[in-house]
């Protein structure tokens, strides 16, 4: 082999080597395998309720303001007194309240409280209102009774069977927050209802000082999942 041919062969070998050293690092593809567990889902339930006062229209919890949400403070009043519906001593007023769990979750607890307590005011149009306070001790009497499958159950004042007017509104008015609320036990299951009766009465021996006086209060019903 001539020297010229030998040089050509060696040059060719060097070129191949250089190409190899440059090209090989890019050739490290490897086998891979992959699986995906897709479509796993986490689904939260709903807990909403509606309140029907005295056979009226349902008032849905979720139709209140967006914030804080699921709190509706605009449901029907328990009772609105007018000149034709004034209360007299010893004449009770009872208001049926039906509470329905419209959500998908069972309520682990139902509680009721009186946000803001009780506020007295002279009855609108009263010519000479008394100086008494229906929200104070000795004032308006109050109870909460539930109708259950096994008969009436008195939640406030706590007693077996049906309620009687043995407690004042003032006693309950101290329950102004959820923390001070009256625990009504496990709430209704999803799509179930509980029925209560709110009783109000001027004491049969009410003082004349309660004439021309009105009590304003609200009841808040609270479900917990």
């Amino acid at each position, binding site marked *: 082999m001539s020297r010229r041919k030998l040089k050509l062969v060696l040059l060719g070998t060097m070129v191949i080597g250089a190409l190899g050293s440059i090209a090989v690092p890019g050739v490290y593809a*490897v*086998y*891979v*395998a*992959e*699986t*995906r*567990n*897709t*479509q*796993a*889902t*986490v*689904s*939260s*339930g*709903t*807990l*909403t309720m509606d309140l029907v006062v005295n056979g009226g229209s349902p008032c849905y919890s*979720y*139709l209140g303001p*967006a*914030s*804080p*949400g*699921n709190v509706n403070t605009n449901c029907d009043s328990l009772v609105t007194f007018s000149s034709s519906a004034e209360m007299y001593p010893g004449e009770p007023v009872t208001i049926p309240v039906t509470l329905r769990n*419209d*959500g*998908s*979750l069972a309520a682990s607890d139902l509680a009721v409280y009186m946000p803001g307590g009780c506020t007295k005011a002279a009855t609108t149009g009263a010519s000479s209102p008394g100086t008494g306070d229906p929200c104070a001790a000795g004032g308006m009497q109050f109870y909460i009774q539930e109708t259950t499958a096994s008969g009436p159950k008195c939640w406030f004042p706590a007693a077996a069977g049906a309620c009687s007017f043995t407690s004042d509104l003032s006693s309950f008015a101290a329950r102004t927050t959820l923390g001070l609320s009256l625990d009504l036990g496990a709430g209704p299951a*999803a*799509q179930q209802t509980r029925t209560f009766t709110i009783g109000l009465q001027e004491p049969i021996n009410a003082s004349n000082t309660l004439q021309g006086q009105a009590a304003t209060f609200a009841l808040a019903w609270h479900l917990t*999942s």
Partner: protein
Amino acid sequence: MKRSNIPHLRPLLYLFGVGASGTLIAVGGTGDVGFGPIDAFVAVITAATAVVTLPSVRAWALAPDPSEGTAASPALNRTKKILVLVMLAGTVAFVGGHGTFAIFTAETSNTGSSISSGTLVLNDMVGATSCWSYGGATSDNVNTGCAPLVSPTNMAPGVSTAQTRLTIQNGGSLDASVFYLTAPWPRATLGTGLTLGTAPTQLSLTSGLTTALVSGDQVTVSYAGHTQPFTVGLAGAAIGATIIPLSSAPAANYSYLVNSRVEVTSGDTSPTNTDCYDVATTSGTVPVAGATPGQTLPFVSTTGNPLCAAALLWVQEQTNGVNYCWAGRGAVGSPAVSTVGQCRTPTTAALSGTGVVAGTPVTTLNVSSLTGNIAAGDTLTITQGTNQDTITTNAVTGNAYINGTTVSINSWTPSFSYTSAAVVKDTSAFNALDGDLTDTISNFDTLHRPNAPVALYPLTSNTTAPNSAATVSLGKYGSAGNAGYQRTFYVGVYLPAWSSLPQNQLQGLISTFGLNWHIQQ
């Protein structure tokens, strides 16, 4: 031509005939040259040549041809004929029988050599349901359709949890040196194929996007091992859109078929663009017929995927009795890293057997197979009806793991004879999880997107870090050990109860998410 003019013709012809015949026999004997039609022809010619060398035939061959004109020319013509015949024989022998013409030969053959490639395939077993990586729709050893891990419905904060046992197997013949877990990219599937060499102006999807895209976002289309990135155009795309406009897209580098994988590779950066996404329940999907669906609730919004950002996720491995928390509360990077291989799980259990007897001290709780972990020093409550006692697990020996059946406790004298109907609750675990805003599905997605995987090194012990120096993380099929061909994981979710934060905004939502399991040679 006279006989004396060709004194060497006879021995030449004779030797040639014998030599040629012998060669043919020898070659045929080696088996190297097949004895086909050409070889037969050669043999015939050779034999004829040999025959020519016989005296009578030779006489004929050398006798004058009556038809030939001169004394010299007939002999010459016959000689030419013979020589032509010999040349033909030589030519045919060269062409048709060019094998080995040595008499003594030796040869060996390494036959049946082959090159065989190994396999690397992954089996994703949720319970007993196998899902092979090669079974995917995109024909690239990536199967995005494996069974959902969990699907709890009607979850309530502080109460609901779900957990699934998952076995990952290497079903191939090659060891996997890399085994990792990631969140997937937000994804979709191609509804209209792309044509090789044609630049698409948009990507048409089979179903709506689960995350919004803005101009400049990156999406990748993949099928059968081919991948091509594209840039989202100026108009972007809203959640639910089935068209992704593209910006100055290059020509497709492959004819991507319908159902090709479309992945948003600029996703998984915040809860708003994770693989996990929320939708509100409807009247058709609310878990209780007639119940208020999330869609109705004005205080519920899917913006920011709030349920994804609230639900806690854990991935606990338990292979060959060794435990490790890869994701969730207890994993590296979580607020409370476990040193005993435990994810914090919302664990409840029932007493096994006949329970405990009031007044008789107990130091070991026998429980039904645990569905979660219990840590040393935890406070447990045991409740049956209105009866409740508080128990503390042993500070040293009190660690119990998924599938365990005993819990070592400090001496406890039951106030009531609790039976198997009693519920044992790890209140320490629940309290820890209820205050956890970190170990959520959303955070897993953003921390462990495909380019930031959790490397699943082989386990060593409950108290020692996994072996990051191991060269095999998921061995070939049939191999044993902590880096053997199969490893077992428990994946769970829990909706925590936030004691001081409102949670109504989490009502009526469905979070959908996935996990990627990836091995590499």
